[in-house]
């Protein structure tokens, strides 16, 4: 079929892709801000992240609606169909990532003015790596690059390693000083949320693999 013969479909599909990019941006900003709020003990910023989650949820439903209409009216097939299905899964993952960012922000508010534990650069490293994985997974999606998608999944090990280190260190502190238990638990929640965010990126990579190769496979 010659290119451009389905211009309505192409245009509407592009619109969905653009909205997906917009939603990804919102999620990325939410993660970045929740970590800034944590670093600075900035409850105002944390509140902004929590409120912003509503917009992420709204975007998810909007894109879902658009995909539904595309499937019902345009009868997509093969790669197009796989891409739409992949997008439907990806927006769910993105929405959950938004929830995790909001979760970190809520923890920031709970911790209020308690002093920051100084040793937690590794938590911030986790956030940095997760955000890079998210950006790369979208790059893999855009470029239809299953190799990059696979490569991202390997990086999850690094996140898991960091999480383990953070977890053990927090345990140690709690064992030594019972006054620190509350604060350490809050931080553990944050680390856990970041670990989950990275897991969600892996799910996105699985979808990119499905979209590009047609193979459904679970990454470890």
């Amino acid at each position, binding site marked *: 079929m010659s290119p451009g013969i389905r211009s309505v479909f192409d245009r509407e599909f592009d619109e969905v892709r653009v909205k997906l*990019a917009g939603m990804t941006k919102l999620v990325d900003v939410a993660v970045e801000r929740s970590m800034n709020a944590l670093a600075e003990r900035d409850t105002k910023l944390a509140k902004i992240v929590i409120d912003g989650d509503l917009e992420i949820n709204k975007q998810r439903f909007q894109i879902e609606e658009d995909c539904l209409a595309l499937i019902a009216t345009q009868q997509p097939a093969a790669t197009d169909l796989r891409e739409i299905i992949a997008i439907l899964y990806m927006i769910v993952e993105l929405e959950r990532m938004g929830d995790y960012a909001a979760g970190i922000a809520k923890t920031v508010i709970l911790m209020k003015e308690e002093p920051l534990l100084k040793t937690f650069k590794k938590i911030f490293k986790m956030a940095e790596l997760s955000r890079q994985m998210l950006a790369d997974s979208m790059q893999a999606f855009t470029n239809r690059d299953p190799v990059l998608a696979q490569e991202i999944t390997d990086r999850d090990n690094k996140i898991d390693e960091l999480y383990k280190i953070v977890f053990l260190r927090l345990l140690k502190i709690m064992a030594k000083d019972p006054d620190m238990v509350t604060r350490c638990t809050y931080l553990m929640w944050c680390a856990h949320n970041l670990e989950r965010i990275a897991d969600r990126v892996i799910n996105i990579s699985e979808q990119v693999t499905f979209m590009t190769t047609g193979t459904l496979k679970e990454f470890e």
Partner: protein
Amino acid sequence: MVVTFGELVLTEVASAPVLQLDNRITNIPINRYPPFFIDEIIAVKIPLHKVRLSNGYSVKSNHMVDPQPVFTIRDLNFYYGAVRALSQISLEIPPNLITALIGPSGCGKSTFLRCLNRMNDTIPGTHIEGQIFLKGMDIYSPDVDLALLRQKVGMVFQKPNPFPQSVFDNVAYGPRVVGLTRNKKELETIVERSLRQVALWDEVKDALNENALSFSLGEQQRLCIARLLAVQPEVILMDEPASALDPIATLRIEELMVELKQNYTIIVVTHNMQQAARVSDFTGFFWLGELVEFSPTANMFTRPEKRLSEDYITGKMG
């Protein structure tokens, strides 16, 4: 920071990111696969004229759409002799959009279409009740000029029906009869413009004197549409315009319809539900002479309001 995705603009408002649709950027060509990397500025054109129509629905479109209906139909009943073929049809058809009429054979959709330019008048024993207004003009009023009505509301049929004449004479026929042009030059201009509008000019410009019947069916159908455009209609009625064509020629006709809706209102009757879904903005579902549902096409095919429409669309009946 502002990230622009065409008219989808991500702005920082009160330091919280907000996605909003924005009308500022236009005429930027579509990038099929825009780079998604998060901090890049991306430009993609997204259609953004949002119009609230008089029928209560909103549409978004690449081109401007007048909110007032082109056709207003009130309590229409149509009879073949004593048999009532249409009962109590009331609806408004929006301009510069594609309205599809679907339903099983014999449901009255073609009869309804032919009411809109009084083609049924030629069938003996038929009569009509109710009113049809074309932009406020009652088309069944006794003083209506039928030739003018059919010039404004043209029709394309299932089987391409070019005259057995040259391509040029086919397209020039209408303007000659109606007296649209003063000289040959003007006539040639109209013929070329009409053939360009249906994307046929490049294929036939060196064969304008060839017999129209020597072309493929898809080309013949586009020629018939060009013939109709030459008399500058406002509305194009299409009765199964692609059912005699192969899938590629069908897609070409559908693309053409989408192009044409910028300047014309299109009402299409089709047996092909997928075609209605692909191409139209509004869909009307007819059943046993009644209009069961009239909804935006995306709604009709994802969440029809009536059980009967649902059953027909999902193939449970019909």
